[in-house]
Every structure is written in C-alpha cells, then in structure tokens.
C-alpha cells in the first residue's frame, strides 16, 4: 500500500468515526435515573415498588436549613426563597410554616363546610353556634383581634382557620417570625418537594442549581448559609463524588497508559493507530445503544468505556507480533483465529446481560458487544493496512528472552490448580459471612456526618420516613379516599400508642365524595339556620344582621357538588393532594407517608386488615429486588459460560487445548471471589460485571499463549504482547482500586486481582512449553 493511499485510508477512517461520533453526540440523551439499573417489574407488587422508590413524596423531599447570626434575616430569606421556589418548575411543594389562609380562591371558600370535619361531630344548631359566638367575643378582646375581625361575618365558626390548621403538618417546628425554626431558634427550616424523582441525579442537579440561585437572589444577609439534605441532595452529591474521582483516576491512567505504550513500542504512530480501534468501538457502541434504546444511562456510558478498554489489547497483540519482513496483513491473518475466538467468547459473556431483565445492563451489553466486535474487525481488516513497516522485533529483546527462559523453567503445577479451585469453593461455601451485597446504597455510602444531620433535620421538621410507606390501591380516586378514611382511626390509634410518630394521607386534604355529601346533608336549610343563629345571638353582644355572609355561604355550600382530585387547583393543598393521590395506568394509588415508625410490624398488621393496602418497606423491597435480579443474572451468566465453552471448543477443536485455555480464567474467577470474600467484601452486581471483564482478559491471554506454538521467537513476541496488555490493564484498575468509593474500588480491585491471577496462571497452566512436556 502506498504512503498516499495509506494516508487517505487513515483520513477516511478518522472522518467516519468523527462524523458518527458527532451524530451520536447530537442525538444521544443521557439518562441518570438509577431505577434503570433495577429489574424491569414483572408482578404488580414489583411495579408498585419501583414506582414508589423514585416517586414517593419522601424520596423527593429536600430538607432545607437557613442559618445565620440574625434569625430575622433567616426568616425573611426563608419567605423569599419559598416564594421563588413555588414559582419554579423544579419544585411542586414548598413549606416553611407560613400561613396561607388567604390563598384559597374565593370560589372555593364555601367548600370549607364540606372539607372541614366540624360537621362530623357537631351540628350547626343554636347550642353549637352560641358556644362558638361566645368564643368569638373573647377573640375580639384578645390581642391580634384585627386578624380575625374581617372574617367573622362570613365565618363565625372559624371553619377556614380550622381547615388551615388541619392542613398543617401534625407535628411542626416552632414558628418564629412567622416561619419554621429549629428548636434552638437559630435556623429557619423549609421542606421542598422536587418534581424530579429522588434517584435521578441529573434532574436533582437541576433542582439543586435552581435552589442555590434562588437562595442567592433571596438572601438578605451575606452571612446566611443554606443547607439541603434528603435523598435527592445525596444522589447529586454522590454522583459528583463518583464522577470526580473516576475522572481524576481516569486522567492519571491515560497518562500512565501513554507512557507505557511509548516505552513498549517507542513509536508515536503506533500509539495513535493503537487507539483507533478503541475509539471506533466506543462510537459505534454508543450509536448502537442510541438506535436501540433511544437513551443511554450515565452508568452505561462510564462503565461501558471501562469494559471496552479490553479492545486496546487487540492492536497491542497485532503490533507486538510485528517484525521485519512480516507484512502486517499476513500477521493479522495469522492472529485472526485466536483474536476472533477471544472477541467472540467475550461477546458471548456480555450477551448474558442482554437477557438480565435490567434495562441498564441490556444497554451495557449492546454497547460492549458492538464495541468489541468493531474493535476486533477493525484490528483485523483496517489496522494492518496502516501499520508502518516495523524495524523493531519484540523477539530480539534479550531481556524478554531471559524472562521467557526463566518462565519455561517454572514447574507446571496442574495439581495445585485443582487444589486451589477446591479450596476456594470449600472456603466460600463454608464461610458464614453473606456472599452478596443486597444494599445498593452500600456501594455509594453517604458520609455518616451528613446522615446524622439529615435525621436531625427530619426530626425537627417531622418529615416523612424514607423507608416505610403505606400504599392504597383501587380502581378510582373515590375508592382510594374511602379506604384512606377508614384507615385513619386505626392510624390514630397507632399514634396514640406511640407506635407511629405521625402520618399524612390524601383524605386529610380531600375527603371522599361520600364524606363530603354526608357533611353537605348535615347543613341546615337557610330558614332553619337563620332561626338558630338568631337564637344563639340573643345572649351575645354581636350586632344583629352582621352574619348575612355566613348564611349565604352555608346556603351556597348546600348546593355544591363534592370536590374531586382535579378541583383543588389554586388551593394550598393542590400539590399535597397531587403527590399523595396518583393516577396510574388503570388504577389510582393513595400514599400514606409515615413519620417516626417505631414498630413496622404493627403498621403492617393494620394494613393487612384491609384489602388493597400494603406497607412498603422500600429498603427491604429493593434488597429483595436486587437479590431476585442477581439470581436471574447468574442464570444468564451460567448459560453464557456454557456458550463460551462451545465457542472456544469450536475454535480449538481439542479438549486438552480447550481445558488449558479455560483453566486460568475459571480458576482466576474462583480465586478472586474467594479473595474478595476473605477480605470481607460482599459481592454486588458491579463485582459480577468486573469478574466477567477479568475472565474475558484471562481468556485472551490464554488464547495467545496457546497460539504461540513452539516457535521461540513467537513465544517471546506473545510474552511481549501479554506483558504490555496486562501491565496497561493492571495500571488502570489498580488506580481505580485506590478510590475512596466502594463502587469504584469494587471494580478496580476485582479486575486488578483478576489480571494478576490470569497472567500468572496463563503462564503456569497454558504456556506452550507446558504442552511439550505433556
């Protein structure tokens, strides 16, 4: 191939990758909702859990604290901040203790008689009205009478005030300067519910930005500080930390890789060419995921690039076998059976994740399989056309020669391999420690100081528990509200017994139609009301005739149709009801949020007494989901392992050779699992993926050693290739294992240990000299 045509091909290749990359970049939507990495629901119970994990009001709630030297400034800022957030698209409910009595639209004012529970236990008769009017006289001579006076002609029983009071949280923080403050009176407290799900870090990030800029705009004092806590705030924080650390470690590894490759080949063109298959793999992988799924998850992206890093080994193998007099094309042709076996078997392993039932993993699978296939094919068909004539031959290295000689002299302890395998299996089987990690949160643990602060704020604000939630399901909103109404007295008993700190349920804001109609029926007709009112007024100092607006409102209320879930627009409880009463595909769901759950079993018992009411333990439920998901993935992996054996067997067609190639990787998997277990690391999904990655690497090393035949020069070239491959991989993952975050450490440690073990075992069990001795 001439220099000019070579240049043209290089440009065409780079241009194709660049155009594809640009297109992908334009259309790709990156999602961050962690639920994508949870199993697709199969039962209605699972669907419920997945809906609530991200949708439950508790998981969307941010607890905010504004602190500073001047409480008045904190209170003013709290008011301004709440107003800004209420107007923003990111938040749907903001509470800071401000009374919003006057925000009820005039048209709904008469509804107070249908919404307030007063009429359930007392009738609007002369006795009740007299008692109420006497209280009002006292109110008028109390301080603050001016607040009530304008309302009295319309609302002598203060129904509106009772309603507003009943809408306040059952246990609320103290009010200072008209807003919530902590017990010490130094921090203004707020609760803000985001529209975005709590476990969607990207949308939570947006909400956090809106919150911060709203705070900057509304702060009245430069010394004020805003703190936010809750699942959403944590997911933003942990994503930033994970990303930050991964980027930092990633940059170091890239520098290290470049130095390593330059040391190994002493050629800049080789370095650049070596990267082309990897970049092509990444871009086509993304394009494939984008085409099939529409979106790609952030984790798929980050993790996928780690996994296809293996593709770097393909050009390394090609270049290491390059020597004077050998045409790169015939080199590639000679290596292809080995390379193709490696690529195909690794792809088979990753294919297992496609059937895992987890969308995120299916994406990961499509990404890696496509990527690795592209990397393998470009290494075979495009790269050889571009690799320059090499003047260096790895086989000439005297140091490699000596190393190979030393290795050849090593014993071939096949019995040790068998013994190690048995020892690992027995150790793990007999160990009492749990092998698996079911708590997803353990992988990205939140600093204890933040958790302590969160529970402190939760306590102060009486904010709902993030773990427990009662779910009421039925065909329509009315049935859900009726069930909630029937449940209420039982919950009250639990609160009285101290089993429960408090609760919140939709019927508290929106009574069922049945209840509203019952209250409406209890309203006296206008003539009767006028008579009893006059009777009550007889003994009070009120002027006659001032309560006409009251009579008119009651007369209106008698004609009102009961309010439904959609009629609350513009009221202070609109957002509360819309987060507690949800319309699903073909049914309605009512949520009862719980505070201070001291005895979950007791709550579960009262839930069990009525059909369609479930106590969700989100922690337990998600752990169950994780373990069920793992079971399925393990089955998929078992099938993949069998397919892998078939692929290798089809390529090598010799039981002994197959055994030699597969032994290092199988043994390595057992050793790494035992090692992780011994060091007290429970296995998670990420360990499983990392184990598959390590196994794929091991298979490649073994295949190439096996391929090296008896030619000493080839053996040295293979050793060179495998040393460079494993050194570069080890560098990347050893760095990752230094991370402070368990999720990154899990991947780093597993793969690093796998690389070392695979390399050593491939030398001990697969090297060709061993074969000649058999």
């Amino acid at each position, binding site marked *: 191939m001439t220099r000019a045509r070579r240049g043209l091909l290089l440009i065409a290749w780079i241009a194709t990758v660049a155009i594809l990359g640009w297109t992908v970049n334009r259309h790709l939507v990156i999602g961050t909702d962690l639920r994508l990495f949870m199993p697709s629901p199969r039962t209605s119970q699972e669907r419920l859990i997945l809906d609530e994990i991200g949708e439950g009001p508790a998981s969307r709630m941010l607890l905010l604290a504004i602190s500073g030297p001047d409480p008045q400034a904190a209170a003013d800022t709290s008011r301004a901040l709440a107003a800004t957030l209420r107007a923003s698209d990111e938040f749907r409910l903001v509470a800071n203790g401000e009374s919003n009595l006057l925000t009820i639209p005039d048209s709904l004012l008469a509804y107070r008689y249908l919404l307030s529970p007063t009429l359930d236990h007392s009738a609007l008769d002369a006795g009740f009205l007299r008692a109420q009017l006497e209280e009002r006289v006292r109110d008028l*001579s*109390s*301080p*603050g*009478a*001016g607040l009530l006076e304008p309302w009295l002609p319309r609302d002598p029983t203060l129904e509106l005030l009772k309603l507003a009071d009943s809408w306040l949280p059952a246990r609320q923080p103290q009010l200072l300067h008209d807003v919530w403050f902590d017990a010490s009176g130094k921090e203004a407290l707020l609760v803000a519910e985001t529209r975005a799900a709590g476990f969607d870090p990207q949308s939570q990030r947006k909400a956090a930005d809106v919150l911060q800029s709203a705070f900057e705009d509304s702060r009245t004092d430069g010394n004020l500080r805003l703190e936010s806590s809750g699942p959403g705030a944590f997911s933003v924080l942990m994503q930033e930390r994970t990303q930050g650390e991964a980027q930092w470690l990633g940059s170091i590894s890239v520098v290290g890789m470049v130095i390593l490759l330059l040391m190994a080949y002493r050629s800049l063109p080789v370095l650049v060419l070596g990267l082309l298959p990897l970049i092509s793999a990444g871009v086509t992988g993304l394009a494939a995921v984008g085409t099939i799924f529409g979106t790609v998850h952030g984790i798929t992206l980050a993790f996928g690039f780690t996994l296809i890093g293996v593709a770097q080994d393909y050009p390394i193998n090609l270049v290491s076998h390059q020597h004077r007099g050998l045409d790169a094309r015939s080199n590639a042709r000679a290596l292809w059976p080995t390379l193709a076996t490696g690529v195909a078997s690794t792809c088979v392993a990753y294919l297992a994740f496609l059937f895992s039932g987890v969308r995120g993993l299916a994406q990961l699978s499509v990404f890696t399989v496509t990527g690795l296939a592209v990397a393998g094919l470009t290494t075979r068909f495009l790269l050889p056309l571009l690799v320059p004539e090499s003047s260096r031959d790895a086989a000439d290295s005297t140091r490699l020669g000596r190393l190979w000689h030393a290795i050849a002299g090593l014993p071939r302890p096949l019995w040790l391999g068998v013994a190690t395998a048995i020892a690992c299996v027995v150790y793990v089987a007999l160990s009492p420690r749990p092998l698996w990690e079911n708590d997803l949160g353990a992988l990205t643990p939140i600093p204890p100081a933040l958790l302590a602060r969160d529970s402190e704020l939760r306590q102060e604000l009486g904010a709902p528990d993030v773990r427990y939630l009662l779910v009421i399901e039925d065909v329509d909103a009315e049935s859900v509200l009726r069930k909630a109404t029937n449940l209420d007295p039982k919950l009250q008993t639990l609160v009285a017994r101290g089993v429960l700190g408090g609760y919140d349920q939709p019927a508290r804001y929106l009574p069922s139609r049945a209840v509203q109609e019952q209250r409406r029926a209890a309203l006296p007709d206008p003539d009767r009301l006028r008579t009893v009112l006059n009777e009550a007024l007889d003994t009070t*100092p009120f002027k006659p005739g001032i309560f006409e607006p009251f009579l008119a409102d009651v007369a209106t209320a008698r004609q009102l149709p009961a309010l439904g879930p959609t009629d609350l627009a513009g009221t202070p409880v609109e957002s509360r009801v819309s987060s507690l009463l949800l319309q699903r595909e073909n049914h309605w769901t009512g949520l009862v949020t719980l505070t201070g759950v001291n005895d979950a079993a007791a709550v579960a018992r009262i839930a069990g007494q009525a059909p369609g009411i479930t106590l969700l333990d989100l922690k337990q439920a998600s752990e169950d989901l994780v373990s069920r998901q793992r079971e399925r993935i393990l089955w998929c992996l078992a099938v993949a392992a069998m397919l892998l054996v078939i692929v290798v067997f089809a390529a090598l067609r010799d039981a002994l050779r197959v055994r030699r190639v597969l032994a290092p990787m199988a043994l390595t998997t057992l050793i790494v699992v035992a090692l992780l277990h011994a060091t007290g690391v429970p296995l998670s999904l990420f360990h499983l993926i990392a184990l598959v990655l390590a196994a794929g690497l091991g298979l490649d090393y073994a295949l190439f050693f096996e391929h090296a035949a008896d030619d000493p020069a080839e053996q040295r070239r293979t050793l060179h290739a495998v040393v460079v491959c494993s050194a570069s991989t080890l560098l990347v993952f050893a760095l990752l294992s230094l991370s402070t975050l368990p999720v990154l450490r899990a991947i780093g440690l597993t793969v690093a240990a796998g690389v070392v073990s695979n390399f050593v075992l491939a030398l001990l069990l697969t090297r060709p000299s061993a074969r000649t001795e058999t």
Partner: protein
Amino acid sequence: MEVRYSRLLEKPIAVSGRLEHREDGSLVRRVVWPYQEVTILQGENVSVERAGSKPRRFTLDRAPELRGMLASFGAILQGDRRLVDRHFAVSARGSESRWEITLTPRNDKLKRQLSRIVVVGTDNRPKCFTLEEPDGDGSLLALGVAGLGDLPVSLDRDVLHAWCTDGDGQ
C-alpha cells in the same frame, strides 16, 4: 381593665387582668375576668392561650395594633424612645401634672391598621392607653383599675375618655 370596641358588637366588652414583665424580656398579658387567657409577647412573637382551645401564634407584623400598644408601653413605662421613633411620630400636650401623648404610625402598613394611640396620665403615672383603628374599632386600657365598679357605668368611648382626662377617677 381593658375595654374593646368593635363594629361587630352592639356594646363594648370589658376584661380585667394584669400585665407582667418577665425577666427574659417577655411581656405577659393575663386576663382573669370574665375568663382566663394568657398572652405572651416575646420579641416579635405572640402566643395567645385560652382555657379550652389551642394556643394561637402569630407575629407582630400581622398584629399592628399590638405593635403599637407595645411601643407605647415601651416609651411610657420604660422610656425607650428609640423603639417608639422607629414606628411612630410622637406629639405631646398638657402639663407636667396632667399630660397627653399621641403616637401616629409612620409607615403605611401600620397606618392601615392603626390610626393613633393616645396615652393620658398625671405626673409620672400613665392612666389610660387609647388605641384607635381606621375602621372605627379600638380599645382602651385603664391602668390600676381592678374591676368594672371603678369605671363609669357607661363604657361609651367619650364617657371613658372624659373619665381618663378627668384626673380624679382613680
């Protein structure tokens, strides 16, 4: 004694009780007749608690008449001129032995709820605090009066005002 006038009422209502200053700086208004009620004013925060009902809490921002009352107490009883000047313009007339001080709100928000406060006293002793609201409502606080028997039979505003300025009603 405190007498309250409201346009909703046919006749004024009278209550009696005590005002106490606590060591923590709070002011307590305790009604003992004809019912029991305790109001605690601490800084900007007010809580009103009456036997048989839930305490009500609000701040002075929402009860301007209370802020006016408090400021005038501060000025007259404790000589805290700064607090008064922040919210009110002050004018005085009369003599050392028989004086009358009028406080008029400075800002519009306060003006909407409160027209003026008139304090009448003799020598160094204030006798009546009269609070007038723009809608015609108002109240009158007579210090050192134990029961209704010590006030004129009619609780009419003019009658009481005359009684306050009269000087021999103690």
